[in-house]
């Protein structure tokens, strides 16, 4: 169990490390848009939209590993002072909520992403790209969040990390 929990964490760490570079792609796309509109007086139809399609996957993939890092905003008045079993219980509450959150998002986003794929849904703009690849990151990230929450539960119960 612990080994699985560790591999889940490793996977999410890897995805976080890859996803973080996407912010530079967003920067370059936005700069290109400013440049082409202001200097060349012809805004692109695609740069801001492509940046937006990257933005969702970027922040979604950061969520699961952030859970491991304890980086989600929380009120720590109690948990900071808690020790022993009480601290474990508090930590478990947080992870269970995160797992529920991930599971429900997963359950409801899978059909929507699949539907978007089967419709060949596009953004209906001047550039008009297909948008299911971006939508597909919601079920993926929700699944990873749920896995990470379960992994944290395992680690917390084994007393590996609280």
């Amino acid at each position, binding site marked *: 169990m612990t080994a699985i929990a560790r591999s889940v964490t490793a996977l999410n760490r890897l995805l976080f490390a890859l996803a973080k570079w996407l912010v530079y792609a967003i920067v370059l796309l936005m700069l290109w848009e400013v440049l082409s*509109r202001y200097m060349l*007086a*012809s*805004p692109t*139809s695609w740069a*801001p*939209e492509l940046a937006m399609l990257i933005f969702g996957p970027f922040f979604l993939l950061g969520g699961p590993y952030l859970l491991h890092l304890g980086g989600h905003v929380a009120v720590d008045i109690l948990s900071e002072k808690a020790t022993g079993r009480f601290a474990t219980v508090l930590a478990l509450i947080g992870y269970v909520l995160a797992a529920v959150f991930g599971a429900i998002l997963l359950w*409801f986003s899978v059909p*929507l992403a699949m*539907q*978007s794929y089967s*419709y060949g*849904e*596009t*953004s*209906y*703009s*001047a550039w*008009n790209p297909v*948008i299911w690849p971006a939508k597909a990151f919601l079920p993926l990230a929700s699944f990873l969040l749920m896995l990470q929450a379960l992994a944290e539960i395992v680690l917390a119960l084994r007393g590996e990390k609280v």
Partner: protein
Amino acid sequence: QGVTKWRMQALWGGGTTPQLYEEKFCERVKQLTGGSLEITPFAGGQIVPAAQAFDAVRGGAFEMMKTFDGYTAGKIPAHGFSSTVPFGFPEADQYEAWFYERDGLAMAKESYEAAGLTYVAPTVYGEEPIHSKVEIRKIADMNGLKGRFVGLASAVMADFGVSVSPLPTSEVYSALDKGLVDFADRGDIKANYEEGLQEVAKFLILPGVHQPSTATAYVANTAAYGRLDDQQKAALEVAAREVSGALRQNIIVDNGEYLRKYEEAGVEIIDLDADDVAEARARAVESWKKAAGEDDLAKRMMESQMSLMQELRLL
């Protein structure tokens, strides 16, 4: 018999004129059914963003929505033609006639059928204006300008030589003010006045060729719709058709009043030449064909509209 309670996700913000008409719609349905069908309207974005209402009704979160088909044209290409067509019907009445006197309504119903949704009826009204910082006297003047348009209009305007930026609605005012774009569409004449566009754009161009006439739509979840009795179904249709006429007339009167306010604020109102617009319409057909692509229903809708336009000597 018991009372059926429905929830409806609408398009517009709370307190706006179109949203007041959604409240009237619900009132009227209640009255016509003797209180057996009660619909609670939610203002645009209150529960789900307007553009996502399609999936919310499909998924059963709402029994009904007031939607703008343009939001789902990326899924269902025909919706580009059942919402608003750039350089399309110049009069709202002509567009509504296409729905009720030709096969528009039948095809709109067809477009929703496979998704498990039932198209009830459209609400059809007139143009949205174009606000410009530079003088635009003819369509050709738009060539080379920077403009803010969204949806099919952004593709069509691009075909007319406009450099299109699809900025968010909330940024239109400052984009015009700062010259980020030369001209822009936003909302209707009254709403744009209330946003203050007369302060930042000295020209108001009519007709708003990018959106000469508009159809929004009442669409129900088919399973929920199937549980209604005949009186309730008829009430939805009657109330919808009443609201369509009433809102359109309200907008006509408001437009007159607000155009005067624009003039008082020093805005010049430019009326494009009808022949110029008609000529541009003929050119826009190419853009329409691109939008319809290989989709059978979209092509049929477009052809049906074009044939009515030819009879009305618009094409």
